[in-house]
């Protein structure tokens, strides 16, 4: 055989590879599409119809990265996401050429004063420096970004001793004193993997002046890893404080309350994400989870929708009294504001009985991560900007505002949002998803599948390997310190020497026609509506 013959054979093989195989594949696809009965579009337009499904599948990614503008995406826009990431990576919040914020849209604005505070006049405590690490960009090219991680000694922006927020100061043997206004909202071990929880714990411990809420999934060693102040959440399923038969275990509760790291307890009545009982498949209840939650390994858990221990405000308060009596630590409740009548009942009972929680965590309807039913996430509960001022007003009207601290949450992931919540009546602010982003969340929105591609909201070992605890814990610390620094900046602009002084008068609401109204007017309108019913 001559060289031409070999070339000819080669050519035929090439044609086979590049034409016949794809054609064959398309014919098979045609037949498959044509014969299936599920999708009409594929039956009518075999092969071509698949374009629709491919576009639909990659649509969210295309929108997030290419087609949505910086202020558009939900639950968080590209811009908001980047703000959190940059605060964690570079501890940097500087921008150039002006804001991308949509100033035509309605929203709350902070009222700055003509004569702001000087840096030296702020009531901030920067005496305990924090040793962290930030990234520094060496070169930012089109295809490569050279940056290095470097150690940094940063100012922690803690509140002065006299400005510290004290929870349970009048009621508890060991009140909880917080020297920063921002903490981590409830996220359970199990919902988040051990690497994410450990990174959060170490980062928050490093930043100090903040707290970590365990979520209802019990207290794990991962929460304790960085020695942060901990608020242990107790849900109706009583994980971590239950007897084998499912009853509340006072013995276990006492054990937990004797732990130094646990500073307070929170009863979770309802939350934006889960105004329903929890459900955990038996296969996910590993030995470890069973030990932490005090349940039987391998057995499916169906949690109740409400505590069996109480069913109205006064019986709940009795339970809280006992918890406080046994534990000596502050006890709060976590609620979503929806039924204002029930809420007013509770506040009235607080007033009459002189009892009640040491703090109330108000989760806005927009709050909540993880897995829940679409209908619950979309429409149950008032958003935080409506719920918070109403709650604050109610407590004030009943003259018991000083007995209870308000912790607000619901997409308050940047300093401006936190400051506005403080002005609306919050004493402290909880953040969950901002902290998830700081440990690497890319908003893939698959928290409910255990397939989180960045190893945050998953217990899958393989996926978690991608999450470096050492690297991420610095980002957590940088993020929370950056928030606190931002709060002091905003306070100074409003003429205040500390963000604890934010009051309603420091913000205004501008509607889409440019009309300005004060928070008072909005709250009074809400209260009028409540009274008219």
């Amino acid at each position, binding site marked *: 055989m001559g060289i031409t013959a070999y070339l000819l054979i080669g050519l035929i093989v090439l044609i086979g590879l590049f034409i016949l195989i794809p054609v064959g594949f398309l014919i098979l696809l045609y037949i498959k599409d044509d014969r299936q009965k599920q999708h009409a579009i594929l039956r009518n337009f075999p092969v071509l119809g698949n374009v629709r499904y491919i576009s639909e599948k990659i649509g969210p990614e295309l929108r997030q990265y290419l087609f949505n503008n910086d202020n558009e995406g939900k639950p968080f826009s590209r811009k908001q996401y980047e703000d959190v990431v940059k605060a964690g990576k570079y501890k940097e919040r500087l921008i150039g050429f002006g804001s991308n914020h949509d100033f035509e849209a309605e929203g709350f604005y902070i009222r700055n004063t003509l004569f702001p505070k*000087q840096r*030296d006049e702020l*009531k901030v405590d920067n005496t305990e420096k924090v040793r962290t690490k930030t990234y520094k960009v060496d070169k930012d090219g089109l295809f490569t970004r050279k940056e290095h991680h470097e*150690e940094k*000694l940063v100012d922690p922006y803690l509140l*002065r001793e006299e400005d510290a927020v004290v929870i349970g100061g009048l009621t508890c043997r060991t009140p909880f004193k917080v020297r920063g206004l921002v903490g981590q909202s409830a996220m359970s071990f199990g919902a988040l993997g051990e690497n994410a929880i450990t990174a959060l714990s170490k980062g928050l411990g490093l930043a100090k002046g903040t707290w970590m809420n365990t979520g209802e999934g019990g207290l794990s060693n991962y929460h304790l890893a960085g020695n942060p102040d901990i608020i242990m959440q107790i849900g109706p399923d009583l994980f971590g404080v239950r007897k084998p038969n499912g009853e509340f275990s006072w013995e276990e509760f006492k054990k937990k309350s004797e732990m130094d790291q646990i500073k307070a307890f929170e009863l979770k009545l309802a939350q934006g994400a889960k105004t329903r009982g929890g459900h955990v498949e038996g296969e996910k209840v590993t030995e470890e989870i069973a030990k932490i939650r005090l349940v039987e390994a391998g057995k499916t858990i169906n949690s109740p929708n409400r505590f069996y221990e109480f069913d109205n405000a006064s019986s709940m308060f009795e339970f809280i009294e006992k918890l406080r009596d046994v534990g000596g630590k502050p006890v709060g409740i976590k609620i979503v504001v929806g039924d204002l009548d029930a809420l007013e009942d509770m506040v009235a009972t607080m007033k009459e009985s002189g009892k009640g929680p040491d703090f109330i965590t108000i989760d806005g309807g927009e709050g909540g991560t993880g897995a829940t039913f679409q209908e619950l996430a979309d429409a149950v509960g008032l958003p935080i900007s409506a719920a918070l001022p109403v709650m604050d007003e109610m407590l004030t009207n009943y003259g018991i505002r000083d007995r209870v601290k308000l912790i607000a949450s619901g997409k308050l992931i940047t300093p401006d949002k936190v400051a506005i919540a403080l002005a609306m009546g919050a004493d402290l602010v909880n953040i969950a998803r901002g902290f998830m982003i700081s440990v690497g969340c890319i908003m893939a929105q698959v928290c409910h599948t255990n397939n989180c591609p960045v190893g945050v909201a998953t217990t899958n070992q393989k996926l978690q390997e991608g999450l470096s605890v050492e690297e991420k814990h610095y980002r957590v610390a940088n993020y929370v310190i950056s928030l606190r620094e931002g709060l002091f900046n905003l306070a100074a602009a409003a003429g205040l*020497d500390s963000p604890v002084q934010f009051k309603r008068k420091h913000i205004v609401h501008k509607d889409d026609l440019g009309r300005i109204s004060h928070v008072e007017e909005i709250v009074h309108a809400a209260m009028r509506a409540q009274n008219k019913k």
Partner: protein
Amino acid sequence: MKVAVVGASESVGEHVLMELKKKEYETVAVISENNRKPDMEKLGAAQVAVSIDHDFYDVFSGCDAVIYISGSSHKAGGNKSVLIDHDEVIKSINEAKNHGIDRFILMSAIRAHEQEDSDSRTIGDKHEADELLQQEHLNYTIVRPSHLVDKSGIGTIQTGKGLSTDGEISKEDVAAVLVEVLNNESAFYKTFEITAGETPIKEAF
């Protein structure tokens, strides 16, 4: 030994207070803003003096040494004509003399000696204070650190003259140097430029 720290609320000053506390010196912090008083006390100052109209020199009485921290940086930019307020330094020097304080440590910055007509255009104009220190027969040490950064101290430095301006040094290390030279005889009557290096601070002078 009682040490007055002027400019204690500057970031290097905070580290100096911590370092002095660690070495068990008695300290007097001299600051210009009343609000920073609690911070100074927390950092270990036995006494805090708030200067109003820069009239703070009574607190020098009873002190054995002064550490003067100027908020200067060699990177402060060419458009700043005076990197440190040398009038203030001169006033402090005179007051130290009046109170019989013999030891005076001045922290400025490298290239601070350059003048307005220097080729580099980095304007220092701080030489007056340095010269005065030398003339007044005070037991002085002038420390001119390179670019100050917020990093952890490494405990080792390099000293010399005409150090490169690209260098950097952590504020913690500068503070350690300022406190180390207090009683280190080989640093008396001398000017040092310092930057991060490999010699342990104790042996660098």
